[in-house]
């Protein structure tokens, strides 16, 4: 079940309360991150640990002329906006501003540059992963007008590259549900599983998985790990994956509703990169679009049924039951 939160490799954002910023968004389509010789579009980029530690990272940016031309088609001019590149570490609460060209109209940034990774830099080179954000940003306050950005720092367009180590893909792997954990969360002694949600982290972290811990009874977990190809074990794992996803999705929706006060829309989801990746992944698995995924998510019983189908629980259930009915016969004494 480790990969069902694996991130989509490409994504775009829509700025909700503003209009006329499409040109600014389009001009960032050309932004690329090069890891060694490999070229990457914005999104999540999973790399092995050695690459993360040793590779050279290079960023390509649009030229000043392209940016100014694009901004001319928006309600915000090149004199009011800046081009910024910000690197943020995952291990520490730290960000470095690598590029801050203001105003864009007289920017002199190179269109291709190497990202510095030095012993005193906690962002690029973070062994836990890091995020690079390229954005066109409103630099100073504008007179408030409907559907036009006015607050300093508002991004008109942005692209995020999340460079994550390979091992992070298993960060959703279950922990042992011990008696201490049961006591801590006031669970029954015989509780076999528990999905712990830290709701703040669901929205605020780079990955929704940061706010989720899946606990499985110590004995069950050991048996599962020791018999991963067994039909019953496979069914249990799929069941657990479905249960976890249901709990996570419901809590994500509650957390967003807590912020917005209204039903969750696709634009709400797009405001939280980690949540967006979760729902994109879910949409891909379900074979539907983001909106339909949200509609399904608002009906937990129906979502449960769809997820069980996606995770092959019908087949797994039949296999497990057939195995169970055959088991005693095969193994029984004459």
């Amino acid at each position, binding site marked *: 079940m480790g990969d069902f939160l694996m991130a989509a490799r490409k994504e775009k954002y829509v*700025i*909700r*309360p503003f209009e006329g910023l499409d040109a600014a968004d389009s001009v960032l389509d050309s932004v690329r991150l090069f890891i060694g010789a490999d070229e990457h579009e914005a999104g999540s980029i999973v790399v092995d640990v050695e690459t993360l*530690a040793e590779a050279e990272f290079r960023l390509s940016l649009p030229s000043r002329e392209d940016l100014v031309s694009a901004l001319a088609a928006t309600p915000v001019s090149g004199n009011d906006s*800046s081009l*910024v590149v*910000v690197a*943020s570490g*995952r*291990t*520490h*609460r*730290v*960000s470095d*501003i690598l590029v*801050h060209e203001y105003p864009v109209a007289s920017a002199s940034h190179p269109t291709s540059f190497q990202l510095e990774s*030095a*012993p*005193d830099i*906690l962002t690029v*080179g*973070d*062994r*836990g992963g890091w995020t690079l*954000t390229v*954005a066109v*940003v409103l630099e*100073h*306050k504008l007179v408030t007008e409907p559907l036009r*950005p006015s*607050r*300093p*720092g*508002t*991004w008109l367009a*942005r692209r995020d590259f999340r460079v994550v180590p390979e091992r*992070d893909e298993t*960060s*959703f*792997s*279950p*922990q042992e549900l011990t008696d*201490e954990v049961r006591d*801590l969360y006031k669970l029954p002694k015989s509780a076999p599983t528990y999905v712990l949600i830290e709701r*703040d*982290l669901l*929205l*605020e*972290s*780079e*990955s929704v*998985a*940061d*706010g989720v*811990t*899946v606990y499985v009874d110590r004995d069950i977990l050991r048996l599962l790990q020791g018999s991963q190809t067994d039909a019953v074990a496979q069914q249990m794992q799929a069941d657990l994956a479905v249960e976890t996803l249901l709990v996570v999705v419901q809590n994500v929706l509650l957390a967003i509703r807590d*912020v*917005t006060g209204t039903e969750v829309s696709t634009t709400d989801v797009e*405001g*939280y990169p980690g949540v967006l990746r979760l729902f994109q992944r879910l949409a891909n698995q379900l074979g539907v679009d983001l909106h339909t995924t949200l509609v399904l998510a608002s009906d937990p019983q129906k979502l449960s049924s769809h997820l069980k189908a996606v995770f092959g629980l019908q087949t797994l259930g039949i296999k497990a039951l057939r195995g169970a009915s055959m088991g005693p016969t095969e193994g029984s004494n004459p």
Partner: protein
Amino acid sequence: MKYPTIDDRTARAYIDGRRDGQLPSSARPEFTLNEVTGDEELDVFDVVEGAMEALDLGARANSKTAKNDKDAVEGDLAVTLFASLRVLPSSVLTDRGFWRFVAVYWMFDFIQWRDGENCRPHSFGAQEGLGALWDCVPLRMFDRALISERAAEGLGLSDVGWGARVAGTDLWRSHILRVLIGNAPNVVQRVLEDADKSLLPTSLLRKVVKDLQRTRSNVMFEVLDPDDARVLVDEHRAGAASKKPEVGEGG
């Protein structure tokens, strides 16, 4: 260059052993030495040991004032810890195994005192499955002082540890380090200034941070200068103060 780390399983076994009395307080967990490219002359173990001597954790935890304000002690010690450990390369400082080593090998008793005898393993950097490391006590102390220094640099302040010393467990853990607002030191600085002037009682702080998080969807806090950060926090504080209390909320 070699540096000490402790894996998650060893950390949890040590925590359990100390808590249930199977391990004496003199016992130390086993650590392993990882190797990375770097200054071969730098002895990371010695650097950490030196930091612990400078902190004098036992004496600080037992002081008369400590009992009443554990977070003030944490904030003050954060500045010292940061000053000592910042000489280490990022390859070490971004390895969670290293932070577990600092927490479990050197700071077990302090962490038990600070976060409580039954605190979650997260306080020790344990629980490998969790992506977030922010609540590991030595790491959160390091970040607290790092944020404080960056904010001070932005304002040209000479006391780079001022912000770290503004006490408030919820303030730091729930509203700065736990959320990505912590990545924007100028915004953090303005929140700390208001907290220091008692302008942000708990219920108001909670609303302000909640609203800030919402605004952050559209605004890159990291690029705001100190003046813009001041305006941002002022507006959100005024906005939150003018809201009606929510159901079940006092005041």
